């Protein structure tokens, strides 16, 4: 039994087995180039071992020369694979140095096949048998070829390349890879190089056993690769666990999740999400199938919210109705956010939805109640006002009437008492002034409360009002568009009062849409600078506009075009805006609908700066 044959054959077999296993892994996962490169280096190592066995068992100098010539091929393969491995798998090593190593080694191989018998010897003069592992093996004696230095130089460069990579990895904190992979590579390559040089230059008479060193290297690499595989498996398990937890959380919150792949329009949805929209578990979904399930009246506003979120790179948050196949209706609250590529184009959108039908119902009831109460209290307040006014005015008006009647009677008598008539006329004048005073007092009472003026941010104010009416707008299927110019200076005033005016105008706008179908139901709020030191906030609607004969008295008290209106909203609005030093005006859009313009002066200190 020959130990040499057994050992070297085992090396070949072990390396080939490792190579085969990792090649199979690479076939499964083509992008894992590290496995292919490792497999190539293992194949190379087995080639080296085979050539070494061939050399030790050579009977003639020609055989030995051929074996030594061919060993350069697997060596090149191992070096190329290792340089690649360091670059690709460890992402270390200098590229230019790697290239030089590879080029010198390729040059070495070319020279190797140029010289006879090989790069190492000018001439092999004799085979010298020596004892190795208890048996006789062949070694060569001859004239060394000084071109062999090129091969050794390439190995030296390779060692520099490996040591440099080791340093990089160490600094990067990947100390394990640095020591076990680069460290063992450097160590075994140095050992192989030194041994080879000593043998070839005739310093040490012994057979070449470089493959044994390289097998150590392959073993270290294999160990590390398996560790990485195990680590990846652990990560996958952790991921699975976290997915499970996520699923549990989503289920307990009754959330439906979906991901919309914008490129192909496909939508992935959780079971709960499918159930909310009434989709079957295996139905394939896309944007259109979802859109078709939305209540027709909510499609436009929802689409707009999604588009706006994508164009602003923001999040959308909306509520809509879903019309289920059975004819039932469901209210959903939904949120979504886009994902974008490097150029900022949307790639996917992720979202959640939750059933709010029950909450919505109670909200609607509460809203109805609130509106009824608000109307009742307005009517009551107005009733009290009217009653107080009537009482206060009836005294002087009654006196005027009775005086006038008395004066008539006096003048009809045969001898009119002119003195008395003059006294009556003086009293009439006094009572008229008294009536005027009542009206003045009433007006002063209504204006009571000084203006709480401070700088007000227009964008913030508009946003707040729109948020306040959003629920109402959704319920009335009105789309509210807002456009506020960038960096508007603040206006001076009482934000609550100005918001009251805007609220009144927006609600009026929504009231004006009666009889308009969806898509035509729009109220727009635009704010922009209008001339020096003036901000204009315009509220326009897509309704029927202001009838021409009514345009003149739109702002008169108790004037209304609504069946149940009180006719005080615009009067109060004008009082408020004028108290702010602004103006309010109404006009009709050329393309239909009414437009109310409120202009307000910019806060004083802003104007100076």
């Amino acid at each position, binding site marked *: 039994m020959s130990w040499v044959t057994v050992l070297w054959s085992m090396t070949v077999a072990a390396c080939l087995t490792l190579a085969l296993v990792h090649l199979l892994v690479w076939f499964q996962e083509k992008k894992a180039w590290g496995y292919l490169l490792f497999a190539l280096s293992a194949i190379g190592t087995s080639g080296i071992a085979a050539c070494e066995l061939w050399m030790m068992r050579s009977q003639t100098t020609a055989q030995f020369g051929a074996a030594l010539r061919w060993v350069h091929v697997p060596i090149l393969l191992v070096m190329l694979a290792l340089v690649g491995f360091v670059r690709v798998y460890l992402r270390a090593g200098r590229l230019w140095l790697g290239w030089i190593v590879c080029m010198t080694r390729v040059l070495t191989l070319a020279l190797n096949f140029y010289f006879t018998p090989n790069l190492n010897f000018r001439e092999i003069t004799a085979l010298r048998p020596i004892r190795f592992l208890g048996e006789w093996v062949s070694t060569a004696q001859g004239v060394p070829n000084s071109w062999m230095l090129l091969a050794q130089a390439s190995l030296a460069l390779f060692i520099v390349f490996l040591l440099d990579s080791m340093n990089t990895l160490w600094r990067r904190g990947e100390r394990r890879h640095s020591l076990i992979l680069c460290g063992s590579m450097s160590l075994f390559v140095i050992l192989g190089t030194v041994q080879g040089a000593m043998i070839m230059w005739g310093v040490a008479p012994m057979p070449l056993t470089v493959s044994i060193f390289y097998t150590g290297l392959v073993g270290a690499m294999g160990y590390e690769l398996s560790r990485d595989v195990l680590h990846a498996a652990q990560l996958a398990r952790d991921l699975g666990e976290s997915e499970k937890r996520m699923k549990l959380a989503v289920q307990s919150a009754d959330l439906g999740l979906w991901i919309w792949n914008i490129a192909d329009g496909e939508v992935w949805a959780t079971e709960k999400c499918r159930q909310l929209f009434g989709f079957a578990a295996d139905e394939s979904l896309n944007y259109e199938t979802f859109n078709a399930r939305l209540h027709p009246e909510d499609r436009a506003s929802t689409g707009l919210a999604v588009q706006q979120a994508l164009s602003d790179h923001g999040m959308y948050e909306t509520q809509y109705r879903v019309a289920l196949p059975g004819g039932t209706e469901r209210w959903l609250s939904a949120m979504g956010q886009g994902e974008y590529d490097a150029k900022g184009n949307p790639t996917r959108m992720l979202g959640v939805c939750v059933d709010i039908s029950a909450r919505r119902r109670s909200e609607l009831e509460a809203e109805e109640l609130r509106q009824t109460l608000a109307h009742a209290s307005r009517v009551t307040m107005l009733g009290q006002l009217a009653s107080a006014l009537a009482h206060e005015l009836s005294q002087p008006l*009654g006196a005027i009437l009775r005086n006038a009647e008395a004066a008539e009677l006096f003048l009809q008598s045969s001898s009119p008492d002119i003195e008395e008539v003059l006294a009556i006329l003086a009293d009439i004048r006094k009572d008229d002034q008294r009536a005027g005073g009542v009206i003045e007092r009433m007006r002063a009472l209504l204006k009571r409360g000084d203006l709480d003026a401070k700088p007000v941010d227009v964008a913030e104010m508009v946003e707040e009002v729109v948020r306040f009416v959003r629920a109402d707008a959704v319920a009335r299927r009105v789309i509210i568009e807002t456009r506020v110019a960038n960096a508007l200076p603040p206006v001076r005033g009482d934000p609550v009062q100005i918001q009251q005016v805007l609220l009144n105008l927006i609600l009026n706008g929504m009231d004006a849409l009666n009889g308009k179908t969806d898509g035509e139901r729009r109220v727009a709020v635009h704010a922009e600078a209008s001339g020096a030191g003036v901000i204009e906030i315009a509220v326009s609607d897509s309704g029927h506009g202001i009838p021409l004969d009514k345009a003149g008295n739109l702002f008169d008290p108790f004037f209304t075009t609504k069946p149940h209106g009180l006719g005080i909203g615009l009067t109060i609005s004008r009082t408020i805006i004028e108290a702010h030093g602004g103006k309010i005006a109404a006009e009709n859009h050329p393309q239909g609908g009414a437009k109310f313009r409120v202009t307000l002066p910019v806060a004083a200190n802003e104007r100076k700066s």
Partner: protein
Amino acid sequence: MRISTAPAAVVHIVDDDVPFLTAAARLLKASGFDVRIFASAAEFLAQRDVNAPGCVVADLHMPGMDGLELQTTLARTREPLPILFLTGQGDIPATVRAMRGGAEDFLEKRAPKEKLIDAVKRALLRDERERSQRARRREVRALLDSLTQRQLEVLSHIVRGRLNKQIADDLGIHERTVKAHRGAITAKLGVPSVAELTRLTQEAGLFTESSSTFPKGQ
């Protein structure tokens, strides 16, 4: 000008709003009424001539004693006056109370002149009627007061249509005694027939359950 020995009917206007008070007084004077003005209910109650006929025109809302309180207080006096309310605004509960209390009318301050004058005229006529009723009642009362206790007792039986014999049985006295009482009663009251006696006791409000001063149904 009315020429009469009795004091002339006076329209008493009560209103805290002096300009209106003056104007209303002017109109009513010019329309031929005797007018006295009072700036408060208390002033009117203190200064009125109880024997003077007439009516009251009062504001419903007044500081201190208001129109409705004045109406109740006035109703308790020996010579109440019909009251006519004026108000700045329609107030349904107050109107109902005023009409239940027997108010002659309830007008807005700016009601047409004709309506006001008609209402004043109606109130004056009513006062005249009620005043004479009260005078007649006082007369009958005086006559009835001259009867003895026994005679009043016999009279109460007579007006209920009882015969002499039945009355004698009821009271446990002799029929002749009843006849004697009867003779004394007719002599004192100067009324011979049972029908006349019944009318007289009714006028005096005697032997009836209700003694309301005002006609029923209002």
